[in-house]
């Protein structure tokens, strides 16, 4: 209500500084007193003159003020952070907000300002920060109080006495709590997770499962761990006790571990029963074993490629002199050594990340057991690359050794010798090894690559044919064997590209990508679903060798809502999409078979650390400010205006302070002794006085 009142008063506004005025008054008083005492003629007149003069100097005025009283301001804080989305908290919050706003409207001289507390990323609920900003715009004398609708999980509550006193702005702070009293919540908390791990070793992730709000002590609980889409593994652990999980880092790039604890009966939310740990696998150094056959013009292509990379430790094995060419040169004049084959092919074989055979013919150099070791190495998860020439045909072919079992294609005995240009096949266009190679063949056009002149014919290849030679015959084959991978290049001519024959070609790119695919680099997975965070957006990419339009993804937000996301075809075998990540925490995406995670902000944000509704965090501020705590599940409180010195809470109601602040809207100012009147009076009286004195 707009209360306007008028107040009048007389005010003095001396024209002289007070001491001087007093001195003048005294002087006049003494002079007049002396005159009266001596009964001087005209003394009364003199006294009148002095009095009028003093009065004129005192400058009396009639002041009339017009005042308007100001409405008080109350702040309504509405917590809309992610933890408020648990259960029916959002609906309760919304109902309470409408009711409070309605009731505030019916109170006179009260303005209600509603402030929404949004998600603050990894920082949790910053309710007092929002309040501080709102209070900065409210004049101190007009704050009637603060009402906060929240689950009470506030992460910036003040802790020092002074800050607690300041937080409420000197008015009651009332807490209206969503949720219920005595809620329980089970959570998985990651205590320690290294962000990086060396490929081939394990890292340790320490975590604890805690039951909040329960009276009991340690209890058994089943946890489930999922890693990169592998079958889930379960373990039984005790609550409240740190548990260590060993995570083997099997490949470079991200390894995502998801840990989920079984639900606690009656717990408020399952959101924090899950924790996600992302560990970046880095390769220490790449260990590559290159086994080459007779020295030929192409051998150095491999060495130039592998030796130029400072991250590669190359062990190169070749036979410079076969046993039958021994010319009895004394050993002291030869640089040839007996290669430590047993150490390489038996003892240390599994330490290699990749084995390359380049035109190797087994002329009794490696015993079958060593080749069997290599086959086992591949089945057990190793990578094998073969570049074969004419030696692949005939009795010394590696296909006729125990290694043949893991090779994807058998030689037919034919060797094609004619110029041709390699082509990327249709599957190859979608495969990470050969997709989008510079200069590759388009729908009709030939590839802009140099010619090759020899191809080894094979029958019935397994796996994927990525490149083809004349007549569409297989040229490059990629296959999976057991846990491992094999790539077979059916020509010994790729070196012509590195020598830039006929324009050259992308040999470095193909060999590099093939090597990384063989080593299971996630960047080169042919069936892959990945998500990454880019600012506030999540960017999804899906790769697949399958033809046809990509399926839609199911996206699950950190707070558990699901929605569908359509993918857009980006190129052969590649599809993608992006969307706004409007919540912190771990987003899960799946195309039905593959699962991807994207952690926005901290992977396990504070917001979900404890999902119980609690009064405790804000309790000191409530108590210090004299506010009330109301569980909305019990009742919705009445609003009352109370005088500043009265209690601001009672059963069923909360109070807002009445400040009676006002502004002066107008001042009327009337001088009571105008100078002209004073002049007339003084001069008139003085003249009469002089006349009386002169008589």
């Amino acid at each position, binding site marked *: 209500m707009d209360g306007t009142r008028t107040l009048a008063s007389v005010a003095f506004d001396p024209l002289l500084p007070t001491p001087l005025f007093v001195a003048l008054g005294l002087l006049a008083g003494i002079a007049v007193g002396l005159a009266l005492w001596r009964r001087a003629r005209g003394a009364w007149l003199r006294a009148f003159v002095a009095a009028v003069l003093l009065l004129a100097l005192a400058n009396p005025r009639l002041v009339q003020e017009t005042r308007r009283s100001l409405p008080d301001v109350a702040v309504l804080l509405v917590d809309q952070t992610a933890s408020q989305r648990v259960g029916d908290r959002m609906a309760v919050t919304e109902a309470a907000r409408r009711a409070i706003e309605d009731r505030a409207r019916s109170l006179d001289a009260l303005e209600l300002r509603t402030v929404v507390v949004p998600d603050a990323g990894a920082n949790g609920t910053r309710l007092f920060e929002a309040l501080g900003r709102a209070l900065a715009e409210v004049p101190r004398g007009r704050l009637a109080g603060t009402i906060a609708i929240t689950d009470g999980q506030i992460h910036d509550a003040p802790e020092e006495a002074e800050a607690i006193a300041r937080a409420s702005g000197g008015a009651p702070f009332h807490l209206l709590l969503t949720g219920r009293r005595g809620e329980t919540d089970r959570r998985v908390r990651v205590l320690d997770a290294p962000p990086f791990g060396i490929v081939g070793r394990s890292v340790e992730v320490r975590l604890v499962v805690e039951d909040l709000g329960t009276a009991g002590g340690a209890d058994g609980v089943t946890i489930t761990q999922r890693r990169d889409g592998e079958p889930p593994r379960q373990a039984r652990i005790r609550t409240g006790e740190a548990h260590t999980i060993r995570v083997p880092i099997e490949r470079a790039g991200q390894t995502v571990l998801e840990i989920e604890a079984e639900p606690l009966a009656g717990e408020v939310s399952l959101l924090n029963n899950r924790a996600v740990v992302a560990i970046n696998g880095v390769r220490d150094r790449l260990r590559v074993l290159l086994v080459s*056959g*007779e*020295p*030929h*013009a192409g*051998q*150095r*292509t491999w*060495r*130039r490629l592998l*030796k*130029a990379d*400072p991250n590669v430790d*190359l*062990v*190169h094995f*070749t*036979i*410079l*002199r*076969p046993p039958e*060419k021994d*010319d009895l*040169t004394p*050993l*002291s*004049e*030869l*640089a*040839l*050594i007996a*290669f*430590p084959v047993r150490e390489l092919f038996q003892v240390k074989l599994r330490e290699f990340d990749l084995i390359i055979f380049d035109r190797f013919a087994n002329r009794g150099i490696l015993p079958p057991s060593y080749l069997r070791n290599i086959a086992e190495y591949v089945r057990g998860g190793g990578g094998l690359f073969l570049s074969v020439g004419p030696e692949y045909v005939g009795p010394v072919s590696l296909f006729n050794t125990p290694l043949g079992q893991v090779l994807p294609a058998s030689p037919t005995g034919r060797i094609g*010798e*004619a*110029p041709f240009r390699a082509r990327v096949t249709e599957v190859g266009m979608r495969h990470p090894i050969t997709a989008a190679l510079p200069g590759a063949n388009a729908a009709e056009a030939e590839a802009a690559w140099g*010619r*090759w*002149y*020899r191809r080894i014919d094979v029958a019935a290849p397994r796996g994927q044919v990525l490149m083809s030679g004349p007549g569409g015959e297989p040229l490059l084959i990629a296959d999976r064997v057991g846990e491992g991978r094999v790539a077979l290049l059916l020509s010994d*001519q790729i070196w*012509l590209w*590195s*020598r*830039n*024959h*006929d324009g050259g070609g992308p040999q470095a790119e193909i060999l590099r990508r093939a090597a990384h695919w063989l080593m299971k680099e996630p960047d080169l997975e042919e069936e892959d679903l990945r998500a990454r965070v880019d600012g506030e957006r999540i960017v999804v990419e899906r790769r697949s060798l399958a033809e046809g339009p990509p399926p839609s993804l199911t996206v699950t937000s950190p707070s558990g809502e699901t929605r569908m996301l359509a993918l857009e075809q980006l190129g052969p075998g590649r599809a993608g999409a992006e969307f706004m990540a409007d919540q912190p925490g771990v987003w899960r995406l799946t195309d039905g078979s593959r699962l991807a995670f994207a952690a926005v902000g901290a992977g396990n944000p504070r917001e979900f650390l404890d999902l119980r509704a609690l009064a405790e965090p804000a309790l000191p501020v409530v108590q210090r400010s004299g506010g009330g705590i109301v569980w909305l599940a019990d009742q919705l409180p009445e609003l009352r205006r109370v005088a500043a010195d009265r209690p601001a809470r009672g059963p069923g109601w909360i109070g807002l302070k009445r400040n009676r602040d006002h502004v002066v809207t107008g001042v009327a100012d009337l001088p009571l002794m105008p100078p002209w009147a004073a002049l007339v009076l003084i001069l008139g009286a003085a003249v009469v006085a002089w006349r009386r004195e002169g008589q």
Partner: protein
Amino acid sequence: MLSLDLLIALWLRGLLRAPAPARAAAPAAIALFLVFVAAPVSAQVDPMRAALETRLAFVVTGSPEVDRVSRAGLVGLTDFVNRRTAANLAEPLGVRPGLDDLSFFPLLYWPVTADQASPDERAIEALNAFMRDGGIIVFDTRDAGLGRGMNAGASAALQRLTRGLAIPELHPVPADHVLTRAFYLLSDFPGRYVGGQTWVQRHEDRANDSVSPVVIGANDWAAAWAVDEAGRNPYATVPGGARQRLLAYRFGVNLVMYALTGNYKGDQVHVPIILERLGQ
């Protein structure tokens, strides 16, 4: 006044005379024409043959005698390599840089003669690409030791021939260089003559497996390697002896192995055993 000033300025800077290129162009055009007419038109390297087999090559100098020695030398070396190592080389070829596709060859033997023509622009481009893509050029000035005077003017010719080529900074082959242990253990690299200094790239280029793109020597290796139709060595070694020729062949083998397997013998795995054998 300003125009006058400008004209005076131009005159002072000598820009008022007829543009020089117009006058220089005529002889250049004639020279270019002569090059095209004089050069043989057809290339002799057949890609089907060259791509399928590994073989050595020499640069055709235009001097029939020198080219004959080069061919006989590489034939002799090829035979030696095939009999004693795992490599199987095909018959060597003579090539003309700029005309023939050099990309098939790991190694180019280039005897330096005083009167051979300098490589033209296309040849320089082809030779630089050859070295950049991993090939090795072996220059042989054939004037070391007692051979001095046999090939007068070779050093000057070498400078002339390599003008425009991307020759890296060189230094004498160090005692631990892979050329000294690529197959045989060698301490010097004799040819028909002995005593010539052999040079290789000073700084190792990791992108090229630390292989020197150029080897420069003066011992007339081709003459020492050469065999005639009857399988004899037509050129006597100086000062002589079977040992000198054997060592010349051994150097040839090391050179071929260096070209085919690069720095293989420089790999760490070989070093300890070789050091032991060297008694160090």
